[in-house]
């Protein structure tokens, strides 16, 4: 009989100084050469299970350990993580923290050197890993010079170098854009298929993985609920109930089908999982709701986003960007001085020209022009490293050595002191740990409000309102460090929202958020929009963006490639390819649907829009 790669029996674990079990009675037996997805909401015990498999529990994290975990037949209690390294390779959430070397090549040799392999063996093994992951083009670079996707590849390669039987990854896709995430999941699939490795991946964004994995292990509140293939699991209530971030389309199908089942109790329906079934379903749905006579030609002209319409637009832009150029290497101010003077001497102008040339070579932002109006929700899309973050930092004057102009409410921001700018613009960063530092949520908000010259009563009211809006009134006296990741993000959001700025900028607001938290965020954005605020969002989460955006800017290599309505952007295939964007599954389906029902308007981008469109058509009638 062959040995199971991973076998857990009645495994429970309680962290040192903790009062409850992080995982309870895990019974798990993993088959060799399969691709598993470990799914569960945040705080459900995914990370604990991963730590148990790679031996960090009980050797690095101490606590009370029940039952046993066996890796290839060896009990982890008797094996240190280092000894397990040649059986289990672990890729952690943040690639930056697991790349220790100054060059990619040394990163690959690291674990082999540690385990005392000979030079010939090392050379053989790393070459194999390099070929699998296709990282040969940046072998000599430093890990911190690489993009997120490349770093993830290097992390996977460095683990593969030891040729372990099991590869286990903790949320590897959460920071990647959609095309890169697809690439990485395909890479993992090929490793599993062609090398026969057992792959276990924990993630709560299931979008890219449903087609790739063999089985999903659902873990909830420290317990394994079930282990089934995706096709089986999608038919059951479980995934939808525990708040896993499924593609919107599935969530919608689920609701529809349960509705129908509720009406005629005796029949059961399957949730359509492949394209043909889904298409058929949508077709029926459209036909049952559609009245041929009362068709509105365009979704967007019909309703929902009146602010999009030209005549409703507030005429004065709140924020204008003119000829914005930025480089991290050369200060724009110096250059501006250079270029504004007219030197009669030739050698000076030659030197100036050289400086100009160098400046343009290192540009992160290249001649950006844009106008933003109150009441808009503008999304910035583009590859990792396209200059989106740099752009918003220039808008808020956090980076101020640019060339060009940013005009806020009619005043050049270069002329304004920084606290005047932050009064108007609130910038929300990705990582809440970068700003929370006081010992209660209340104190955090007070800190944010201290420069606004509010009376104590006003201040108290602001805090109350903000906490209420975010549903965290109960955390008011809590220290922010003791709460969960999702709550922490809410607190960080509160520290900006309470300042009530006219412009809100979100940098990757949906990373690590589950379905419920995303819904809350949508509400906040919609409310701000109704208050005539300008909202700018940087995100890779296309489904999320499509639910709120009135306009999309696509950036690539420091330029704005397109500035248009979402519909136009997502119908421009050349543009999408160029900027690593993908059409969502729904958009694919919808194109095929329109081929069959040509009367549907061309500009619908998500299932919710279709639903609303159809209900409008029928009620107008």
């Amino acid at each position, binding site marked *: 009989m062959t040995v199971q790669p991973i076998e857990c029996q009645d495994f429970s674990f309680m962290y040192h100084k903790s009062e409850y079990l992080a995982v309870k009675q895990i019974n798990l037996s993993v088959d060799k050469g399969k691709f598993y997805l470990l799914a569960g909401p945040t705080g459900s015990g995914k990370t604990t299970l991963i730590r148990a498999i790679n031996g960090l529990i009980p050797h690095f994290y101490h606590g009370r350990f029940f039952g046993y975990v066996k890796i290839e037949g060896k009990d982890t209690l008797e094996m240190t993580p280092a000894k397990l390294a040649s059986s289990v390779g672990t890729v952690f959430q943040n690639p930056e923290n697991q790349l220790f070397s100054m060059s990619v090549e040394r990163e690959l040799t690291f674990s082999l050197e540690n385990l005392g392999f000979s030079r010939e063996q090392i050379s053989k093994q790393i070459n194999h890993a390099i070929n699998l992951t296709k990282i040969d083009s940046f072998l000599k670079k430093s890990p911190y010079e690489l993009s997120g996707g490349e770093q993830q590849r290097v992390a996977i390669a460095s683990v593969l170098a030891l040729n372990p039987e099991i590869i286990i990854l903790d949320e590897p896709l959460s920071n990647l854009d959609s095309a890169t995430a697809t690439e990485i999941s395909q890479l993992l699939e090929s490793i599993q298929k062609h090398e026969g490795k057992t792959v276990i991946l924990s993630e709560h964004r299931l979008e890219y993985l449903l087609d790739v994995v063999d089985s999903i292990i659902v873990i909830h509140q420290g317990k394994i609920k079930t282990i089934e293939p995706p096709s089986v699991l999608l038919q059951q209530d479980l995934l939808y109930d525990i708040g896993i971030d499924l593609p919107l389309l599935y969530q919608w199908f689920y609701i529809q089908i349960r509705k129908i089942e509720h009406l005629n109790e005796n029949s059961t329906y399957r949730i359509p999982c492949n394209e043909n079934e889904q298409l058929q379903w949508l077709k029926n749905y459209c036909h049952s709701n559609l009245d041929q006579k009362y068709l509105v030609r365009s979704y967007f002209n019909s309703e929902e986003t009146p602010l999009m319409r030209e005549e409703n637009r507030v005429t004065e832009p709140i924020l204008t960007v003119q000829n914005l150029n930025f480089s991290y290497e050369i200060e724009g101010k110096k250059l501006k001085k250079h270029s504004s003077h007219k030197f009669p001497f030739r050698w000076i102008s030659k030197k100036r020209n050289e400086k100009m040339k160098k400046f343009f070579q290192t540009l992160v932002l290249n001649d950006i022009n844009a106008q933003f109006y109150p009441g808009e929700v503008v999304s910035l899309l583009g590859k990792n490293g396209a200059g989106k973050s740099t752009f918003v930092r220039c808008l808020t004057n*956090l980076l101020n050595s640019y060339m060009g102009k940013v005009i806020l409410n009619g005043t050049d921001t270069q002329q304004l002191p920084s606290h005047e700018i932050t009064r108007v613009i609130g910038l929300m960063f990705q990582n809440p740990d970068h700003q929370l530092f006081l010992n209660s949520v209340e104190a955090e908000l007070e800190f944010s409000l201290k420069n606004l010259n509010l009376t104590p009563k006003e201040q108290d009211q602001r805090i109350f309102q903000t906490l209420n809006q975010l549903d965290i009134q109960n955390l008011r006296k809590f220290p922010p460090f003791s709460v969960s990741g999702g709550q922490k993000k809410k607190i960080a959001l509160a520290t900006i929202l309470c300042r009530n700025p006219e412009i809100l900028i979100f940098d990757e607001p949906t990373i690590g958020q589950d379905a419920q938290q995303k819904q809350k965020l949508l509400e906040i954005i919609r409310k701000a929009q109704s208050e005539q605020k300008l909202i700018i969002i940087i995100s890779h989460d296309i489904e999320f963006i499509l639910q709120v955006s009135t306009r999309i800017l696509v950036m690539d290599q420091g330029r704005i490639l397109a500035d248009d309505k979402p519909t136009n952007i997502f119908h421009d295939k050349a543009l999408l390819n160029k900027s690593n964007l993908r059409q969502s599954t729904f958009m694919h389906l919808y194109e095929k649907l329109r081929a069959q029902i040509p009367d549907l308007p061309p500009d619908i981008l998500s299932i919710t829009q279709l639903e609303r469109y159809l209900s409008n058509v029928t009620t107008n009638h």
Partner: protein
Amino acid sequence: MSLQIIKTFHYLKEQTIFHRLDPRTKGIMLVIYATIIFILDDLTLLLILTGLLIIALFLTKFAVHIWEGVKAMWFIYLLIFGINWYVTNLNYSLILILRFFNFMAIFGVFFRSTQPEDLSQSLIQLHVPNNFAFALSLAFRFIPTMAQETERVMEAQKSRGHQFNSGGLFQKARNFFPLLIPLIMNSVRRAFHVAEALETRGFGVLKRPTFYHELKWKKEDWIVVLSLLLLSSSVIALKICEKQQILTLPWQ
């Protein structure tokens, strides 16, 4: 600011003569040169040596970076110069300044031209325990990450309306708490993550790991070491002659 100093001592990917030297050679160079600087207490000789060093810096493209570092530390230079002039005399304070500059330059060249891993590898080969040697190269690896994080935290606090540069001296110092606390907490958190990853990559299984990259002692290394030995022995000889009053330098 402080970030400029990091640049002066951080590894630079280039191909200069110094980059090609074996790290052990550079280590020897560092020790010998530092000793010479300490022994010399004659302003003219020091000036000549400094001149030679500056020429070498220009030839190897390090001059700009070292100069940036000097500019960033102007306050410390001023302090050394001022205090010593006050306490002793101009001559001595100039000597001290030159020594300080030479130290900075030679350490700058060393760290800018030596890959931290090469450094730790040669330390391990010199029987320094693996843990210490690796900690050194790890520290260098995380300098850019930490610098980036510092920037992030400052940006995040600024966008909450925090002003780092307001108020008097005492208030200014207090203004840095919102920067320091998140930084420290994040470093601790990061340390845990790094330790986890190290554990699973087999770190520390062997007392002395094997090395894929070989450190080779080349012809250039011999030349550099020999010429440095020559230089140092002539300086020492000069010192002895001076002490015995066999020889007086022409300018004395």
